[in-house]
């Protein structure tokens, strides 16, 4: 069974690298990395800081875009082309199919993130940056965010059966994930019980990306030590697992 899972993951991994959209995203990401040099020039003494921040931000954004478009078409494409029937005729649990496809996708995205990281570090090195270990800590948390977004995208693709709707829902959840503090403030200020309940429900259901936003907060004095961010990693893994479980439940109900 594990062999089947790994086979699905492997062919998904290869498929992602053959996907032209995926390659375009990678190319575009590398191109915009170059643009960070322009911003750096405008920032004078803060050049290195700007390139550092922009590079990490672009790495995250393009990782999310790559996993988003990969995930929404992961199952939908095979369903529309009917090639999924060939797999489902095998004695393969449907859950293994979803998990295998997801694993192949996230492994392919981590390769792209590492490549972008290499380009970014090279740019920083050229500009006189002295290596900061916080960089090595920021990348895993970017990857965890990408994994959560990927799991959400898989869920919405099976929930809505429409690629466009999946992208919209996933992006909406991802944006709300960074807005937790402001939403909590709104909930406290609101006088309506219904709106407080609604906002609190949204805060609970949506992924809280502040737990994974290490790249934006490492410089803050009193920021928790890296070891405590492991909790954030655990949160990301559990959230992704919950989304995948629901995706498996949805997929199991589909009739082919």
């Amino acid at each position, binding site marked *: 069974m594990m062999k089947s899972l790994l086979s699905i993951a492997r062919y998904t991994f290869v498929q992602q690298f053959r996907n032209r959209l995926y390659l375009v995203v990678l190319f575009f990401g590398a191109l915009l990395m170059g643009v960070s040099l322009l911003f750096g020039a405008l920032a004078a003494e*803060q050049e290195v800081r700007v390139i550092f*921040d922009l590079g990490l931000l672009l790495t995250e954004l393009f990782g999310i875009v790559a996993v988003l478009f990969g995930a929404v078409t992961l199952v939908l494409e095979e369903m529309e082309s009917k090639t999924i029937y060939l797999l489902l005729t095998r004695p393969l649990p449907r*859950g293994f199919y979803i998990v295998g496809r997801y694993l192949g996708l996230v492994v392919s995205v981590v390769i792209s993130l590492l490549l972008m990281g290499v380009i970014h570090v090279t740019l920083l090195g050229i500009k006189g940056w002295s290596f900061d270990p916080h960089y090595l800590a920021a990348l895993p948390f970017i990857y965890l965010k990408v994994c959560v977004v990927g799991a959400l995208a898989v869920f919405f693709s099976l929930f809505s059966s429409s690629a466009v709707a999946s992208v919209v829902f996933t992006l909406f959840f991802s944006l709300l994930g960074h807005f937790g*503090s402001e939403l909590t403030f709104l909930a406290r200020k609101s006088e309506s019980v219904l709106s407080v309940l609604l906002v609190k429900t949204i805060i609970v259901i949506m992924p809280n990306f502040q737990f994974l936003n290490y790249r*934006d907060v490492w410089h803050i004095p009193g920021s928790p030590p890296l070891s405590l961010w492991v909790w954030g990693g655990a949160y990301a893994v559990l959230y992704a697992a919950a989304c995948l479980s629901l995706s*498996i439940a949805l997929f199991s*109900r589909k009739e082919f």
Partner: protein
Amino acid sequence: MSIKRTVLTAGIFFMAFLFSAQAISTVFFTPRWPLFGAPSMQDNALLDVSGVFIGARRFAADLAFIQLLQYYGSEETEHEEGEADSLAAGVSLSFYPHLLTYARRSVGLDPYFHDVYLFAAGALAFNLNRAEEALSLLAEGKKADPTFWRYQLYAGAIAFRKSFQMDKVIELLEEAIQYPDCPPLLENILGNLHKKKGNYARAAQIFRHILETSRDQGYLDAARRQLETLRSMGYTA
């Protein structure tokens, strides 16, 4: 796996991540950014909100700082940078009237962006003769991050500047420039103060240091001009 079992598994994972979220909130304090209600310039509100929405407050603050530099570098150019004392007579508040607002916009997004406080306070106090604004900005910085003691160092220099105790100002600025985050604006001011006092050798050293370390073309050109002037007087770094 049956659907019921799958949904049950999902429910378990859901409860587990809720638990971990609660544990994170109670076990440790995730850095709380100020709520996005800081005075933001109307024209750039959308840009700032977008930065917050995608979890990029640091980068949004960087962009705001770039706009501050563009604002400060693009308008009035009738006076030389760092000519602090000569500016004391006749500078009007209409020069860069929104400099403080620009600085507040950047630190409203990232209150731990120390360089914005230091740069803007230096420009306000030493170039634009608006010491009160500079001191209020440094006070905000100190409130946001009481551990960054250099705010007090700069505030001290500005306070002495107000009472025209230039020797004290030089003493504090000499200490400030030892740190890598000291903006070249202040190095430039210190160089000019030394030049005014007749300490040409020390002034030349400072301008040489700016030439070697600064990335800002404006300060590089100013340092080059100053070194040429000093060289013509027989002083080199």
